[in-house]
């Protein structure tokens, strides 16, 4: 099962690093960004500050961002809830960091890499999926693909570039 553009997404609820349940609840914001990410992937780390900047810049425009870690923490202890919480406590996240321990959400959404970025409109429809921008190594790009998609959604327009190829580390699925 994989989400496709313009599909309606199902709501989910996952715990943050303090165990508080956080729901997608797309109707609560004009747009919601879901980023599958993790603790130890160099691509996720390289793009992380740019994604945090998006979270901060667009919060005032009624956009929510949720980070989700779907990796198998049994085989990759660096992705444990404790390791996630340590990063949150260090102030590394500008948005909630959720744990998809069962990998149910990642599988339902067809997430492939960390990072893998999805944008959902207020009516719960998938409007963008892919990479933050064209080059993990160029901070000057400022997650431009994601920003443009959000600008389009906020303007009520069709997203000009709704799909790009996600680039990053493969998700560490449970055996």
């Amino acid at each position, binding site marked *: 099962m994989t989400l496709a553009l313009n599909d309606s997404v199902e709501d989910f609820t996952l715990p943050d690093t303090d165990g508080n349940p956080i729901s997608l609840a797309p109707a609560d914001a004009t747009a919601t960004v879901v980023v599958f990410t993790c603790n*130890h*992937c*160099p*691509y996720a*780390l390289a793009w*992380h500050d740019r994604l945090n900047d998006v979270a901060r810049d667009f919060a005032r425009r009624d956009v929510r961002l949720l980070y989700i870690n779907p990796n198998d923490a049994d085989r*990759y202890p660096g992705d444990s809830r404790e390791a996630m919480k340590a990063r949150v406590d260090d102030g590394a996240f500008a948005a909630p960091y959720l744990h998809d321990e069962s990998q149910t959400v990642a599988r339902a959404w067809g997430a492939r890499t960390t990072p893998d970025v999805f944008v959902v409109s207020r009516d719960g429809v998938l409007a963008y999926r892919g990479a933050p921008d064209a080059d993990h190594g160029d901070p000057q790009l400022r997650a431009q693909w994601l920003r443009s998609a959000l600008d389009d959604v906020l303007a009520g327009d069709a997203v000009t570039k709704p799909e790009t190829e996600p680039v990053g*580390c*493969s998700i560490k699925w449970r055996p």
Partner: protein
Amino acid sequence: MTAPTVELLYWDGCPSHPQALAELRAALESIGRGDVAVSVGRIEDDGQAEASRFVGSPTIRIDGVDPFPPGDDEPLGLTCRVYRLQDGRFSPTPDPQLLREQLARRLPDRTGPA
């Protein structure tokens, strides 16, 4: 004199190895050692990772030595390796300048004393 060995180990789950290989070959050329062949090895499972002391993709070894030695507590396994560039940014591949310096330091000059 024994020919030096340069090895690139990678895992398919990480997309960085083509860039790493290109930068490794470019670095060898830039120090005048384009004659050195790069041995490319694919790590396919946890058993191979364990046997090869593989801490992530890509891993470069020069005469068996990792020029960017991982920490002692770095777990072995199928994962992407995190490097730091000279300006502190995270990267899936080594800093090209640091790579050139390591290669120049560790590979004997082929025009050196006979």
